[in-house]
């Protein structure tokens, strides 16, 4: 079995276990304000790091390319409170155009 299947299966099982444990544990365990603040921050920092890697690196090297144009449009669309599909499709279209024009 290759490493992709291993990651797919193990992450799937762990994520289900977390969902189930949430339904099964007493709420009091997570009531501490510090635990709540940190658990609230964790998805935000991970997603932020992930966006940085996906948009500005190629094989761990820092790269600025057509993806910057796409992300700029996404953030502009979000600032203008445009709906979710517009944000994503706008970013994709912009990035694709810049890529094809080889700017």
């Amino acid at each position, binding site marked *: 079995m290759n*490493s*992709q299947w291993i*990651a*797919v*299966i*193990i*992450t*799937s*099982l*762990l*994520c*289900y276990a*977390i*969902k*189930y*444990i*949430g*339904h*099964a*544990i007493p*709420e009091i365990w997570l009531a501490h304000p*510090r635990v709540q603040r*940190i*658990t*609230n*921050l*964790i*998805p*935000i*920092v*991970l*997603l*932020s*790091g*992930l*966006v*940085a*890697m*996906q*948009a*500005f*690196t190629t*094989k*761990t*090297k*820092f790269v600025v390319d057509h*993806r910057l144009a*796409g*992300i700029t449009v*996404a*953030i502009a669309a*979000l600032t203008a409170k445009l709906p*979710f599909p517009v*944000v*994503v499709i706008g*970013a*994709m279209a912009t*990035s*694709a155009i810049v*890529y094809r024009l080889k700017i």
Partner: protein
Amino acid sequence: MSVQRDSLSVGLAVGAAGVAFGAVAVADHFTVAQACFLSFVLFSGASQFSLVAVMSSGGSALSAIVTGTFLGSRNGLYGVRMAQILKLKGAKRALAAQITIDESTGVAIAQQNLQDQKIAFWYTGFGVFFFWNLFTLLGALGAKAIGDTSAWGLDVASPAIFCAVLFPRLKERKLLFACVLSFIWALSITEFVPAGVPIISTVAIAAIVGWK
């Protein structure tokens, strides 16, 4: 009736984004079967996208597992909340756990009374589940057919989706600070550490910023 209708329209709208996941997964060299397995069993968008992204940027299976699991951890917190509303045992609890995600919890807790909260949870959860899986398959098959995914913007689909997920949560100054700091941190260490580390190491920023 309107609770059911609203829940199912959320299910359709959110589930349609599964087309992006299917396409991105295949663009990042995962198979159609792996994309479908993730949507069916893992069933948590951020974890699915991150797993695929970490491995395609050269990260190990371990760093993909850790990142994906951390991103899935908020579903556990949703589970704690939903358990108080649903009060289930046995097989029903096991089933409810699988569809405990952002949308099912969000639509449920927006309802005024207990009965509507329960209806909203099940309809939204299963609605998203059905459409997310259907569209993952379509997206994966579609991406196989188009070749160079950069020419279709698929390489920014996933970061653009994450920007949209993050954006509404950044109203608080502390959250914005942690977000910007993590972004800069990840980019500044990426050339010096193994792939996956720039992302996972941001958990330390969450602990430091959230400490007080």
